Structures are given as C-alpha cells and as structure tokens.
C-alpha cells in the first residue's frame, strides 16, 4: 500500500511542474510558472495530506486560496492532467472548464488538449494522450476540435436534439 501510494505520488509530482509550465508559458515568460506537491508526513503519507502549490509566472505567493479565478482553473487542469499521466483513462469529459479563462488562457488550454488528443494507440496506454470530449461556449476553444456535436432544443417536442459536424483539422 505504501509502495503503491508513493509510486503515484512520485510520478505525479515530477509531471505536474512540466505540465503547469506548458500551460503558463508565453513570450514574456518563456519558462512559465512553478507547481509542486508536498507530503505533510513522509512516514505515513496516506494518513496525512498532500499539499498542492502552483505559482503563476511573476507571482511569489504559496497560498492557493489567493489565486484568481482563472489562475485556479489553470492550476486545477494541470493537476488533472498530471494525475491522468499516472493512471491514464481513455478519455476526458470537461464541462465548461474555460468559463473563468481569458482568451490567452483559453487558447493555451485548447492547444494543449488538441495536442494531447492525437490518435496514437501506444500513446494512449502510456498516458501521453487521451480522447477529449469538451463542452464549451467559446469559439476560441471549440474551433480547435476535430468535430462538433451541436445540441439544440426542439421546442415542439420539448426535448433536446443533436447535429454533428466534422471540422477539417488544422495541425
């Protein structure tokens, strides 16, 4: 039990920083932010907590509560993707995770998801890629998708219906 827990912890804490950097770097800050996990107790980690810290570029506070709405969203997605890399599920379903993101962060997150969703069976099992199902209201997010499922309300029948459309992918 201890060994399994530590295997998960070590793997995820090495991945988290590089994923967070991919999601936060830009021309002004080519390196990006810093993210790390720390154990409250080394001897019996599963009896105590794991602390997550993410610091956006140029910010120097370690208290996650003080991050802004958009900064918390980016930190959360980095953690989710890092956990996935240890225990890869074949797909992700994300419902309006871009609600608090400004256009720059939407573009970065969409680009990351687009890059991770490339079809490659070997990559899938190794945790390097996954199928993505994303619900979004922002065209700067969904125009990066391979295909759209448009949901509309059929007023006469009082129910939902869908239309599908493939997008020509741009790599």
């Amino acid at each position, binding site marked *: 039990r201890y060994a399994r827990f530590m295997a998960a912890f070590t793997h*995820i804490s090495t991945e988290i920083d590089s994923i967070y950097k991919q999601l936060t770097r830009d021309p002004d800050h080519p390196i990006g932010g810093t993210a790390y996990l720390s154990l409250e107790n080394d001897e019996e980690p599963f009896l105590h907590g*794991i602390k997550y810290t993410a610091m956006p570029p140029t910010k120097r506070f370690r208290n996650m509560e003080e991050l802004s709405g958009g900064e918390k969203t980016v930190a959360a997605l980095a953690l989710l993707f890092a956990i996935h890399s240890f225990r890869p599920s074949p797909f992700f379903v994300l419902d309006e995770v871009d609600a608090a993101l400004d256009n720059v962060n939407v573009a970065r997150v969409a680009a990351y998801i687009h890059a991770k969703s490339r079809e490659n069976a070997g990559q899938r*099992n190794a945790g390097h890629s996954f199928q993505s199902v994303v619900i979004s209201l922002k065209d700067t997010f969904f125009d990066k*998708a391979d295909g*759209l499922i448009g949901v*509309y309300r059929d007023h006469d029948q009082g*129910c939902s219906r869908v239309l599908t459309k493939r997008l020509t992918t741009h790599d």
Partner: protein
Amino acid sequence: GSIHRLEVDNFKSYKGHQVIGPFLNFTAIIGPNGAGKSNLMDAISFVLGVRSSHLRGSQLRDLVYAYDDKEREVRRKAHVKLVYLQGDGTELSFTRGITLQSASEYRIDDKVVSWDEYNNKMRSLGILVKARNFLVFQGDVESVSTKSPKELTALFEHIS
C-alpha cells in the same frame, strides 16, 4: 480505445431513441444555454455508473425524460448505451438502464451483468469511476485546485 458513439433512450431531456456521435479524438459539444449539453455529460457519467445525485437528480426517476412536471408520474423506461471502440477495432458496448421499477440494470454487449462485472470490465480499460479524475462537471474545475490535503490523499489512494 475510445468512445465511438452514445445511444440514449428517454434520458433527461433526450426524448425517445437518439444516436449521438461519432466521437472523434477531440469532440466539442456546443449549443445555447439550456439546450442539453450537460445532460449529455450526465449520460456518459450515468452509463459509467456514477450515482444519480451527481447528475442533478435526487433519484433515478428524475433522469427519465418527462415533458413537464405532470409527466414525471408516467412510468417510462430509459437507458444509455456507450459504444466503445477498442484498440483492435472491435466494438464493445456498455448499457445502463432504468427499469419500470426505477432500478438500475447493467449490460455488456446487450447481456445483463452484475454491477461488479460491469465495473471490473471498465477498470480493465482504465476507466476508474470511483476516482472520477477524468470527469469535470460544470462549475467544479476551480475547486480541484483548492482541494484540502486530505481530499488529495484520498484521490491518490483511489488511483494507486
């Protein structure tokens, strides 16, 4: 593997039998407020075995299509089938239904199975419903980053 398509039958706002898909590597679900986008995520979560209280319904009955409050009393069946495309190209289907007596019923390739068998088959594909780290419901994303240290440990236990 990956999700190929969904077949929903009287699930939430989806009346009658509707086939939704195909799902590609990166599929976006779009549409106006109240159209039924989150209900599609609920359909995926439901067929994987997530409890109805996470799907904005206090009981299974609430997940069955109804035209209005009066029709909620009408006894209807509902089900969601998720057709999964395996690495070797073969299709595997998972179906979860709501019977007339409002109980859950699980099927793999249209054969009724127990929840344990159903869940074990999903685990073998890497779908860990208990951890749910691959499902982010509307409005929940920010709270992932401010989970308490204890909650994070619990999540790590589920996936290790």
